[in-house]
C-alpha cells in the first residue's frame, strides 16, 4: 500500500477498493513503555449502498465527520453497522443517524431501544448470516468468535474478502511518528503476541478464565467459513497477512489464558 520514500500514510486510508479505514490512535503506558492503540471504523462503499462498520469515539466525532464527508463525496451512508453497544463501536451512532436521515442502524440491536429511544423506527435488527446488499458487494453478518458484549457481530465483505472483527485481532503499536496508519505488514517490526495483551487483558478479560484452544477453534471456524484477504480490527492495525497475524492472535490468547490459575 506504500512505497519506499513516500510520506507515511494517514487516515483515512483505502485498504481495498472502495473500503476505507478511519481511526483515532490513543497513547497509553504499558510497563513504562508508551504504545498506541487504534479505535477504528470502516466505510464500505458499494455500487448502490454504503455501510459504515463501527462509528468511532464521540470525542473524535468532529474529525471523523470531516473525513467521512470527504471520502463519501456526496453519497450518503445507508447502513450504520455498530458491531456492539460500547462507546468505541457505537458512540457516534446518534450524530451519524442525524447526518444521514435515511440511514438504518443495523446490528444485533438488543437493548438499543434504551440507548437510542428516538431512533427505533430506523432499527434493522440483524443476526448471524443476514446480509447487507450494497449492490456489487455484500456485507454478511458473521458470528463474533471473540467478543466482550454478547450481542457482537463481525462482518464479511464478499467482494474483497475483508473480515471486520471488532474487538478481535487487537494489537498495539509503538509510539513512533507515522506508524498509526500502517498495516501489519508495513510496520518496521512484526507484531508479537505480547502486543495483543493490553486489549485482550482489558476488554477481553474473560479470556484468562477460558481455555484458549476453545476460543481459537471458534476463530478458525469463522476463518474457514469466511476466508479473509484482509482483517480489519477496531483495536489493531489493518491486517494484510491474516495467516501470520492469526498466529499472533492465537499466541496472545494462549498467553493470557490460565494466567490466574
Amino acid at each position: 500500500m506504500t512505497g519506499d520514500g513516500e510520506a507515511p500514510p494517514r487516515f483515512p486510508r483505502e485498504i481495498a477498493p472502495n473500503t476505507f479505514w478511519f481511526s483515532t490512535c490513543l497513547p497509553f503506558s504499558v510497563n513504562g513503555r508508551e504504545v498506541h492503540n487504534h479505535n477504528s471504523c470502516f466505510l464500505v462503499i458499494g455500487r448502490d449502498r454504503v455501510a459504515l462498520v463501527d462509528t468511532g469515539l464521540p470525542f473524535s466525532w468532529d474529525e471523523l465527520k470531516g473525513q467521512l464527508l470527504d471520502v463519501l463525496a456526496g453519497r450518503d451512508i445507508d447502513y450504520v453497522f455498530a458491531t456492539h453497544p460500547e462507546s468505541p463501536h457505537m458512540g457516534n451512532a446518534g450524530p451519524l443517524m442525524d447526518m444521514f436521515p435515511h440511514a438504518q442502524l443495523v446490528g444485533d440491536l438488543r437493548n438499543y431501544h434504551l440507548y437510542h429511544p428516538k431512533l427505533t423506527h430506523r432499527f434493522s435488527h440483524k443476526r448471524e448470516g443476514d446480509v447487507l446488499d450494497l449492490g456489487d458487494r455484500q456485507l454478511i453478518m458473521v458470528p463474533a468468535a471473540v467478543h466482550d458484549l454478547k450481542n457482537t457481530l463481525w462482518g464479511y465483505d464478499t467482494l474483497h474478502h475483508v473480515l471486520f472483527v471488532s474487538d478481535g485481532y487487537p494489537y498495539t503499536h509503538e509510539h513512533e511518528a507515522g506508524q498509526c496508519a500502517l498495516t501489519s505488514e508495513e510496520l518496521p517490526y512484526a507484531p508479537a503476541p505480547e502486543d495483543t495483551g493490553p486489549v485482550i487483558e482489558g476488554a477481553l478479560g474473560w479470556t484468562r478464565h477460558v481455555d484458549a484452544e476453545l476460543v481459537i477453534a471458534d476463530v478458525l471456524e469463522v476463518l474457514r467459513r469466511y476466508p479473509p484477504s484482509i482483517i480489519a480490527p477496531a483495536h489493531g492495525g489493518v491486517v494484510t497477512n491474516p495467516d501470520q497475524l492469526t498466529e499472533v492472535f492465537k499466541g496472545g490468547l494462549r498467553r493470557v489464558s490460565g494466567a490466574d490459575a
Partner: protein
Amino acid sequence: MSRVEQLTDNIYVLSDLEPADPARSWLPSDTSGFEPFNKYVLLEDDCALLIETGAAAHDESIQESLREIVKDRLLVILPTRSELESIGNMGSIIDNFPRVELITTTRALPPLGLAHMRPDRRESVKARRIVRGEKLAGAGFPTLDTVTPIIRILNTIWIHDRRSGILFTSDTFSNELLPDRETTTIRRDSFGLPDVAAVRRSIIARFDWVERARTQALQRQWADLFALIKPTGIAPSLGRVTMGADAAADAIDLYRRALFENSARFGFSEG
C-alpha cells in the same frame, strides 16, 4: 421521575423500570416481570456521588430526580463501566448540571471522551482518572473504596462503602427482576429469592463466557473478597437491590452456587 428509594441515611437508589422483553434485551427467553435500571446517589455535605448515569431512555426522569436530591451540591459522576447503562446520560448530565465532575477508570481515552457533550463542557469539566483498588477519599468520599470485580465483561469497577457496608456491584448480582411495577426495588430479606438454576441461566445470557470458564481461580478470588468484605447491602446497576447483612450473605451464597457449583442438576459442568 425515576423511582427513588432510600437505602441508608445518605444513599438513594434511582430505579427506572423496563418490562422484561427477551426478544430485545439480554434476558433469558423465559423471563417475565420488570427490570430495574439502577443509579445510586451518595450524599455528602458538599458533594454527591452518582454511580452510573443510566440509559438514554431514562434521561429526563434521572435528571429530574437528581435535581431534587442533589440540590446545589457538587455532582461527581462515576460510571462503573463503559456500557450504555453506565454512560448513557454522561453527556447530558455534564451539559445540564453546572457543578459537575467525573471520575473515570478509562486508561487511554480522554476522560470525557466516551460521550457527546458541549465543547465548552469537554474543555472545562474536571475529570479524575482512578485505578481499581484506589480509595475515593481524594475525590471527597472518604468511606468509599474501589474493588476489582470477580466477574466482569468490560473494564469494570465495584465500589465498597465502608460506612454503610454496601457493595455496588455494577452488572454482577443483577439477575433478579420485579414481578410488577409496585414491588419495591429493595429486597430486605431472602424470602422468594430466585433459584440457583434461574440465576445461572440469567448470568449466562449476559456473561456467556462463564459457561466455558475454568472457575478455580475465580472461586478463590470470590472467597478471598467475601472473607475480607461482609456487605450489608448489594447494589447492582440492574435488578433488585439487597439490603441487610443476612439477606446479602444469602445473595452472595446464591450467586456463588450459580457461578461455580458443579452440578449436573443444573445442566452445567466445569469447562
